[in-house]
């Protein structure tokens, strides 16, 4: 395939049809089409409404705790012996991850639309917890679909969602992971079209979700831009973030896409290695296809059947990826690399010991890439990594992987 000519800006997408190049779009059943068009109309109105922005900013400051700090990891930097490593600490947000940024934005939109019932899918449970949290905050009933496998490996988050008043529905179809939860959420939405708002957790799905989720998460990159200039007087040399569906990554990357001197790396779940089926590296090892409302890179077989994939991290365990990432890969603006389960597990322990921060397994993948790259870069270079979630939810499964009794 010929590489398309480099665009003047990497920040103009999607087009009116919801496309980023050939990626994105609105591949949904007719029942949902009027709902998606309605959502788009309300989203266009909301994003141009200063009152909407003001309410979101207020909640960001006083409910989430924004801006999250940009932290210079001195001991890790010293240990790696190369570039300076900074963490964008979205793991300090209320609910423990970046997911709340998007949930607050979308629930405000749901209220504007007069919707009275919230549904969501979740993998690691971080998005489910964030959705259950905002649903509680605004007094709306909430149903969270979660793969049965994930219900088991993310038990603490399941309990948190229940405490928050959400109904957690385990989905046993397929391998019982995020993809299956998303199928079931779509089935709920197609059935309950009148009153229900589907609060998608990642920058994927039919237009306008990828754009909308990106815009709500871009607060991450916008803050980093200010904070790093304050700290270092210049922009970083490298941005690193983990990609499952890709919402934390696009939130960090998007404000920097036109800063050509900033290199950008997205880190996929390499699972047990790319040679078999036990990974979730859709950009590295998949090919473009159509699933869950958008065209994007997918793990699939030669007949177009979607594979289940595997990752130690439930949040990265998805065979697709947000469409804008697919476009950023093909345009060459962002590099995407895999990190294996065991590398993420090592990085998890390293950060815990060196900085006293227990990261989630998702950003542990990004961290493993930082561990590889920082030593190869000069001491004057700067890396910013999105530490998008805290690891409290993962301690039980990490204990299992390390054969430790707790």
């Amino acid at each position, binding site marked *: 395939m010929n590489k398309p000519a480099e665009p003047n800006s990497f920040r103009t997408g999607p087009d009116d049809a919801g496309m980023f190049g050939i990626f994105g779009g609105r*591949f949904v059943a007719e029942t949902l*089409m009027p709902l998606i068009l309605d959502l788009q109309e309300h989203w266009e109105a909301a994003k141009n409404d200063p009152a909407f922005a003001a309410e979101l900013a207020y909640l960001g400051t006083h409910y989430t705790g924004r801006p999250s700090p940009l932290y210079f990891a001195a001991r890790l930097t010293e240990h790696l012996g190369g570039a300076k490593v900074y963490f964008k600490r979205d793991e300090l947000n209320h609910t423990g991850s970046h997911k709340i940024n998007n949930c607050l934005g979308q629930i405000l939109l749901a209220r504007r639309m007069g919707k009275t019932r919230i549904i969501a899918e979740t993998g690691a449970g971080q998005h489910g917890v964030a959705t259950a949290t905002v649903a509680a905050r605004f007094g709306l009933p909430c149903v969270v679909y979660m793969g049965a496998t994930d219900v088991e490996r993310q038990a603490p988050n399941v309990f948190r969602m229940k405490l928050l008043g959400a109904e957690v529905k385990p989905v046993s179809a397929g391998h019982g992971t995020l993809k299956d939860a998303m199928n079931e959420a779509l089935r709920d939405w*197609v*059935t309950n079209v009148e009153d229900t708002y589907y609060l998608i957790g990642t920058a994927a799905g039919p237009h306008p979700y990828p754009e909308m989720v990106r815009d709500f998460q871009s607060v991450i990159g916008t803050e980093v831009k200010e904070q790093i200039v304050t700290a270092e007087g210049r922009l970083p040399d490298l941005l690193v973030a983990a990609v499952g569906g890709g919402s934390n990554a696009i939130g960090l990357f998007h404000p920097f896409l036109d800063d050509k001197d900033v290199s950008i790396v997205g880190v996929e779940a390499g699972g047990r290695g790319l040679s078999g089926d036990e990974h979730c590296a859709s950009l590295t090892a998949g090919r473009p296809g159509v699933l869950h409302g958008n065209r994007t890179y997918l793990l699939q077989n030669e007949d177009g059947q979607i594979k289940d994939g595997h990752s130690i991290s439930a949040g990265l365990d998805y065979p697709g990826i947000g469409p804008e990432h697919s476009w950023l890969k093909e345009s060459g603006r962002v590099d995407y690399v895999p990190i294996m389960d065991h590398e993420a597990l090592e990085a998890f322990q390293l950060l815990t010991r060196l900085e006293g921060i227990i990261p989630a397994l998702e950003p542990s993948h990004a961290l493993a890439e930082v561990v590889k790259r920082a030593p190869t870069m000069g001491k004057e270079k700067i890396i910013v990594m999105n530490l998008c979630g805290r690891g409290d939810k993962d301690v039980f499964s990490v204990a299992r992987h390390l054969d430790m009794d707790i």
Partner: protein
Amino acid sequence: MTATRIDTLFAKLRQENRPALVTYFMGGDPDYATALSIMKALPKAGSDIIELGMPFSDPMADGPAIQAAGLRALKGGQTLAKTLQMARSFRQEDDHTPIVMMGYYNPIYIYGVERFLKDAVEAGIDGLIIVDLPPEMDAELCLPALRAGINFIRLATPTTDDKRLPKVLENTSGFVYYVSMTGITGSALTDTAKVSAAVARIKGHTELPVCVGFGVKTASQARVIGAAADGVVVGTAIVNAIANVLGPDGKTTADPAEAVSTLVRGLAEGVKEARL
């Protein structure tokens, strides 16, 4: 485009003043040979149009019965190429019963749109129903299919209001498939009067026949729905008839083609009585 087998059939049924019985089954469920025998049995039992399901790993608009049927077919090794082969084999014995392939876009996208249309025409396919291709995505497959002489049958739903209906109907041909409810396949049909009103509303916008599906399981439902609609689609009930003769090990406990035929004969009676 020139008249397809679908157009010819509806012209004939108009003369007979009866609605069409449209039957859905999953290609390759529970295995290729059994599914082909079911397909061959359908017209003999009274089915007018065959909807040949293309299995997909992630059928977002389908209920548990059709999800399970798709998984059985995939487990049995079904692929899009084999589903096309099934149609080709069927056509050697039956050159008049319309075949509509129904499923999701990704397997076709991966097969290659142009290659798929060429093979579909050659296999004797008359129409396509692709759940996740709304009119906004017509350039993907709908327009190429029309150019190839294959009907692209669109789903209209209770959420398709009068403002949107013209867009949905614009490139639709063969017939319009009215989805009787907001929901997934296999849900319970609740309000038949509402369905009849919706059929009348759609007919106000198009000359095309309107068939109704989702939730029709019995001969008496087929009779009631068929009074207003030009066709009645039955899917989940047929898929269940197959599942009912499969043991826990997946082996058949009775002939699935015979089980399906018994059901379809009853439905065909219901459809014939619809306008009496």
